[in-house]
């Protein structure tokens, strides 16, 4: 069975890029979310194996969303997507419970590697 991934990003372009990379590498995209609130809803409804989470988003930022999700599912596997220079935010996200991070611009093999590692842990 393919691992189900929930993609969270406020820009459609980024969601599309990620979706392409991941589907090509054998992942099943179970849903897309444009902000933190949506991500929480989709997490509950789709029960993905893994979430990619952008940090800066309207309505609810990624870090808050990670905290929310972790509060009801301590075993949630979330990977943060960040832009360059967001070091502090990434560390904050990791402390909130994210398992790993990937940095934009995305390099396909890195993303795939990170997802595999998080899924296998």
């Amino acid at each position, binding site marked *: 069975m393919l691992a189900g991934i929930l993609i969270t990003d406020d820009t459609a372009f980024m969601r599309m890029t990620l979706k392409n990379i991941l589907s090509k590498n054998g992942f099943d995209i179970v849903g897309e979310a444009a902000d933190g609130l949506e991500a929480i809803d989709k997490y509950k409804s789709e029960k993905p194996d893994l979430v990619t989470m952008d940090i800066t988003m309207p309505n609810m930022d990624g870090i808050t969303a990670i905290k929310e999700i972790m509060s009801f599912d301590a075993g949630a596997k979330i990977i943060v997507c*960040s832009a*360059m220079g*967001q*070091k502090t935010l*990434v*560390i904050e996200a*990791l*402390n909130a419970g994210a398992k*790993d*991070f990937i*940095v934009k611009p995305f390099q396909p093999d*890195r993303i795939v*590697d*990170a997802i595999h*590692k*998080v899924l*296998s*842990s």
Partner: protein
Amino acid sequence: MDVNEYKDIYLAEAREYLQSLNDSLLKLESEPDNGELVQEMFRAAHSLKGMSATMGYDHVTKLTHEMENILHLLREGSLALSSPLADVLFSSFDTLENLLAHIENPQLPEVATQSVIDRLNEQMNPSEAEELEVCATAEEVLESPMLNQDHPLVLEEFEKEIIKEAKEQGNNLCFITVKISEGSLLKSVRAYMVIKALEELGVIIKAQPPVSDLEEDNFEHTFTILFQSSMEDDAIERCLYNISEIESITLQEYLASEEVNQSQIHKKDEAPQKNSQEQPTGNKAVNATNAASLAVQEKTVRVDTSKLDKLINLVGELVINRTRIVELGKTEASRGIMDASEQLDRITSELQSAIMKLRMVPIKQVFDRFPRMVRDLSKEKGKNVCLEMIGEDTELDRSIVNQIGDPLIHLLRNSMDHGIESTEERVKAGKTSEGNITLTARHEGSYIAIEVKDDGAGLDAEKILRTAVKKKMMTKEEADALKAEEAYNLIFANGFSTAKKVTDISGRGVGMDAVKRIVEGLNGLIEVYSVLGKGTSIIIRLPLTLAIIRALLVRTGDEIYAIPVENIRENLHVTEEDIKNVNKQKVISLRNEVIPLVSLEGCLKEQEDYHWTGEVPTVIVVSGEKKSGLMVDELLGQQEIVIKSLGSMMGKLKGIAGATVLGNGKVALILNIATLL
């Protein structure tokens, strides 16, 4: 890494290691079987290499690497310390010193290292050199490829404690070297993840580069962590490999021999420790040890000396104003001002003495280089000389320590050159074949005395006088009238040298007068004692500090003068009846001692025209062996004064050491009794 930021610390520490190398090798020459010393030298060279590699000083790294190779062979016992080997090692230390000087001041000429490296290599038996090469490569294979052949981790006392405890508990201690994939973005966060993961598994004892550097991206993909855990190696490894963008992880058992690292405190590492404590998450144990480590580390602080000088100047100003306020307190009727000024007085005094202590450094700093110098000279001159140093821990003002080095070098060289006789001569004179020089520092009241004493030929008063006459420094008659002790003082005269042969180290006759000048410039005194055939002793007396002294204020005419209390033996009132005339010189008899009497005013004007009016306040001043009664108009009392120089425009004034500003804002001249009498 911003190399410049660490340069000063690097240099200070590198020099400490260099000193320790010099000291150990000197000791090793007399105790060739002392393995501890070799071990210590190896450690020093090793640490130097690690530090220099971190800083990117390739020349130093290369040279220390070669030194380390030789020391390794010495340690293994496959090479014995021969005299030529010691010479080569010493010259490699000298080259190292020059390299450090070049690093400190890049304007200095480049230092060539190849010749000394070649000489080091020559000392190594070729076959052994090869062997070593092999074992070095083997070592490198064993270790992580990114690591520069050793772990540049320097452990501090508290870390050693942790290690000891960990061992006692049977915990796993290992070096973990992590390489993050090339091209990894935000590698500092990767490092953070590794650290975070490790903190869940055990305790991070130390990281290289330090955690703060890792967090700031100040590292090249690779870092090493000394880690303590109850987990097995492969469990740790598995856990770390779960983090993405990690290219490799190498675990290596921590061996006892790694404890070789110095106990010297690395200030550089302070910041990272603090930083790691600020990490939002973390193992409680780590935080606890960090807290403990902070307490340990903050015992000493390296401070730029110019900051200290600024501080001492400010305290000087404060002392002056304190005196002023205390004086106001005396005249103002207000009780409050009096109380407050007394308080101020007390606090200022404490502050002053605390700050003076900050400036005090052990004279060891100067003495340290002498054994090496004496060793080199005795080899060069074929004389067998033993240097004994006493009282190296005696402390004195930093500015004095900085200046006293050259005069002492000169005196020691003189002793080696002119004092100590050749071995044959010594044996003929019934002395031990080995010459002895004793260098002593000790406190004498508020003075420090430094004595250079040898058991050599002693000064020949007759020869000195003959030379003086020959050089037309005085007439035959004048020379005949001089006592031996007075003749000795001629060696301090400009252009005087009795040595038949001029060597490169002494005998040019420019030295002793320079020595005297420097000592007097420090408000010190220099005296010579000698017994022909038995030896010479030269004693330098220096004030403990230059900045603030206690002085007696006296008035003569309208002027106020300050006399340093060190020079004062007592004060008394002299009446006309007390005065006797001896050889047209007024004297008084004080407890069976005849003391010449002069008026301060007459002394400064160089003419005697004193008019007697009843009882005259007189200060009995001493300088070395000389005593004199200085008649003044009024004694004003003692106080602390801050010495200010008169400035270069004034030149050198006979009898005046400087000036000070009094509480009422007026300026008083400070008398230099040594030159006044």
